């Protein structure tokens, strides 16, 4: 591998890397920092980069640089496919590595945005990643042509082998890479027509599976460095509360404990030789908190506030056409319903963690993050050093789901601890309890919907009031535009390419009364599309029931002019056999939506036993992401969306009592279990012409498809999420 280990932190780090390589068998790609030209010091022959995206080694190994983070969603492989498609290299010899955020800053953001969220990894970067591959290909071909002194147009390439047919000569990328790296990059780069793609669209195996399966991959929690100490932390469980006092003597007399430190104004950490010693000493230490103004807040008190918002005069409009209020007032019949959605924690399998080393001159952080640049910025701010004197080494994530993207609170904490122990690497790992107490939670909302109906049961107007939390108000209030959080209206927006309402109603009024309880909101996989799709899709079912129409027929009618919505809806209906009898006791439910640029639909088949026990038998789910880079990986994302989405729909709620989250671990915040997981039959149906995301949209149809099937089975309309212990016995 041409990539050499980082030298930024000196020989100590090099020894660590070599040591851990011996211990763990090898190193992870994440640790290879490719830009340092001290091959001599490494004893490694460093190959020059052809361009920022591509390094070719003499043995034709191609290293493709991936700016976005891998957290299980498969973008690492998909992005490599995009680059390799244009590069025309031998896929069997492709490897990947992360550039660092520090290098991105130093090189004028040559790799663009590092943010890995909003299902944007591929759809936002596909063009420049492909251009990176195409540019490198052109330079490699030019280098061969220069060597042979033939026109470059007479040279062809396949699988890294360059051929000049006229003189029957061949060479390979590895042989000309050094010469190519000295050429000026072309400015005119033409990308392939999608019909000519050979790698994009292929069901290629993931590039990270083997390392993950063998345990070769080192996650943040597993990181070890010479001289490293371990930190456990406790932050005031009441959001907004402060640290008042603690009795460090109790912790300091315990075995292995090195230090007790105040972290910011709301947390205390114990540093010890092992994490468990730090954690148990922290548990034993008396701590006093100033709980602040939110000490009495509760889920019930939030509900009162949100309920008031449902009828509040002031609200911000997200989608309006015609005069919905007048049409509803004049309607001979109405359908009306109120739904609610709870706070939820991301509950990543891997808890928040970071290793930091601070000196007055430099601060380095090793952490799993969805946004290396944001982690870098947080590091610099917490370190009190310019970003150029800081670096972040990204590690693969043991789950992200949005928790590791917007708010890098754990990175700040790790740096603040390391800053109090100059030169010593400190690994901070949150306990599961800390992770549950300090999430950035799925926003809480209530929703009131009203449909006006004419005498024939046609919808004349649709009104929807969402009352509740704004994520942007919590994490980026500067992005609120004239009091409007535009992200609130995901899936409900007027027609457009991103997250639009597909149904054609004669009049529409969708607005938001912002109500922000003190629990910090965050981007939870699927974000606002989750509850919006539940509200919309369940309410469509309610209208169908009230007007005695089949839910599929009503959707088809309202989506008559929305062909992409209709296509995914019809695909699931056809494959599920909607309209044909289901097995005895089995009932079907549908949902369709548009989010993160993609069109998705699901049909759930469920049964409910006489005593109210739910069994989800089968899910058919379709996605039209425009272009499907790796259909196998998209299928995995669709399936995973039901693991995550159904757990949330059925079981997960973070309740607040005395200002703090009550759930502490997976015993009282449980995910879906193996036996509860239905068979998922994914349909990947790219219609071309646009780039949609796949990591999030399908989550949004998981819950409503099942809830609608529950109604079909029992006549019970579940309007408050999660289903939890609400009785499903037949009404």
């Amino acid at each position, binding site marked *: 591998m041409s990539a050499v280990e980082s030298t930024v932190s000196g020989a100590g780090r090099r020894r660590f890397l070599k040591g851990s390589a011996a211990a763990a068998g090898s190193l992870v790609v994440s640790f290879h920092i490719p830009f340092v030209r001290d091959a001599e010091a490494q004893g490694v022959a460093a190959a020059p980069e052809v361009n920022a995206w591509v390094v070719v080694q003499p043995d034709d190994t191609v290293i493709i640089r991936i700016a976005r983070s891998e957290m299980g969603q498969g973008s690492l492989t998909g992005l490599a496919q995009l680059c390799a498609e244009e590069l025309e290299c031998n896929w069997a010899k492709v490897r990947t590595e992360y550039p660092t955020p520090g290098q991105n800053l130093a090189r004028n953001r040559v790799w663009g945005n590092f*943010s890995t969220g909003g299902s944007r990894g591929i759809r936002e970067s596909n063009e420049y990643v492909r251009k990176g591959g195409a540019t490198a290909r052109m330079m490699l071909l030019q280098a061969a042509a220069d060597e042979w002194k033939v026109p470059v147009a007479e040279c062809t390439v396949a699988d890294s082998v360059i051929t000049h047919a006229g003189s029957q000569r061949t060479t390979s990328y590895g042989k000309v890479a050094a010469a190519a790296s000295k050429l000026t990059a072309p400015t005119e780069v033409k990308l392939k027509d999608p019909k000519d793609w050979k790698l994009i669209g292929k069901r290629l195996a993931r590039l990270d599976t083997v390392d993950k399966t063998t345990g070769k991959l080192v996650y943040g929690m597993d990181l070890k460095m010479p001289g490293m100490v371990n930190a456990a932390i406790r932050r005031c469980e009441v959001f907004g509360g402060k640290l008042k006092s603690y009795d460090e003597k109790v912790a300091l007399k315990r075995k292995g404990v090195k230090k007790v430190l105040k972290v910011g104004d709301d947390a205390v950490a114990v540093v010890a030789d092992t994490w468990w010693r730090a954690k148990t000493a922290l548990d034993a230490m008396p701590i006093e908190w100033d709980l602040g103004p939110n000490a009495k807040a509760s889920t019930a008190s939030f509900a009162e506030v949100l309920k008031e918002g449902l009828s509040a005069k002031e609200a911000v409009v997200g989608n309006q056409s015609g005069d919905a209020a007048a049409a509803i007032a004049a309607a001979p019949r109405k359908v009306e319903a109120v739904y609610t959605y709870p706070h939820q924690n991301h509950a990543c399998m891997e808890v928040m963690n970071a290793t930091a080393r601070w000196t007055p001159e430099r601060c380095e952080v090793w952490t799993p993050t969805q946004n290396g640049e944001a982690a870098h*910025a947080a590091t610099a701010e917490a370190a009190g050093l310019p970003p150029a004197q800081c670096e972040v080494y990204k590690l693969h994530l043991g789950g992200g789901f949005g928790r590791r*993207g917007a708010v890098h609170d754990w990175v700040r904490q790790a740096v603040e601890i390391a800053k109090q122990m100059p030169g010593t690497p400190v690994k901070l790992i949150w306990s599961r309890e800390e992770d549950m107490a300090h999430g950035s939670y799925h926003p809480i909302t209530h929703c009131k919907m009203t449909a006006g109906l004419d005498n024939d049961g046609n919808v004349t107007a649709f009104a929807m009031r969402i009352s509740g939390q704004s994520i942007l108000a919590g994490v980026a209030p500067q992005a609120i535009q004239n009091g409007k959080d535009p992200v609130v209206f995901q899936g409900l927006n007027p027609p457009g390419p991103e997250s639009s309402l597909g149904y054609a109603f004669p009049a529409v009024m969708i607005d938001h009364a912002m109500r922000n309880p003190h629990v910090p909101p965050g981007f939870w996989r699927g974000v606002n599309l989750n509850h919006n799709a539940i509200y919309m899709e369940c309410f469509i079912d309610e209208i169908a029931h009230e007007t005695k129409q089949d839910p599929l027929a009503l959707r088809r009618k309202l989506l008559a002019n929305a062909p992409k919505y209709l296509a995914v809806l019809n695909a699931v209906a056809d494959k599920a056999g909607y309209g044909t009898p289901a097995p005895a006791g089995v009932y079907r439910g549908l949902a369709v939506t548009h989010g993160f640029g993609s069109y998705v639909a699901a049909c759930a088949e469920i049964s409910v036993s006489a005593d109210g026990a739910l069994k989800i038998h089968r899910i058919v789910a379709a996605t039209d992401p425009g272009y499907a880079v790796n259909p196998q990986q998209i299928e995995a994302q669709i399936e995973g969306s039901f693991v995550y989405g159904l757990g949330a729909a059925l079981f997960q709620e973070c309740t607040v009592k005395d200002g703090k989250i009550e759930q502490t671990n997976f015993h009282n915040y449980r995910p879906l279990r193996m036996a509860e997981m239905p068979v998922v039959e994914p349909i990947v149906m790219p219609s071309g012409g646009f780039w949609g995301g796949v990591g999030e949209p399908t989550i949004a149809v998981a819950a409503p498809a099942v809830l609608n099937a529950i109604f079909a089975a029992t006549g019970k309309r579940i309007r408050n999420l999660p289903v939890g212990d609400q009785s499903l016995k037949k009404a």
Partner: protein
Amino acid sequence: MTSGRRRLLLAGAGAGAVSLLRPVAHAQTLLSPPDELAALVKAYTQGAVVLPGKVKLDISPLVDNGNSVPITISVASPMSATDYVKSIAMFNEKNPQRDVIRVLLGPRSGKASVSTRIRLANSQKLIAVAQLSDGTWWSHTVDVLVTLAACIDI
């Protein structure tokens, strides 16, 4: 995050990838403030020629949270009766309020340095301008990346 910004990022990154070996050309494009920003400066300076240099706008090039970002604008000046800084101002490209700060100074100000905290709505260009007592105008343009939340999908 508007689609305009997205396009800008795409274009910027794409251009960056291609023009890696042409750093001079790329740097030049970055140094030219957008027309709107130039118009704001022009209105403030009443059309006077503004040269780059002498002023230093100190702000982190990478910001995690745009809510409160420290800035310092300074000019190396003796601040004597005959050689001093008369005014300092700063404008931005993408905040709702483009006109961030205007400061009038004189010899008795002691030093030509102002610090404050500002809110940054998005990644953008900032320009600080200063007029010296000899009537000349000077400026410093800085690109700031605000690493906004990951999952914004509008």
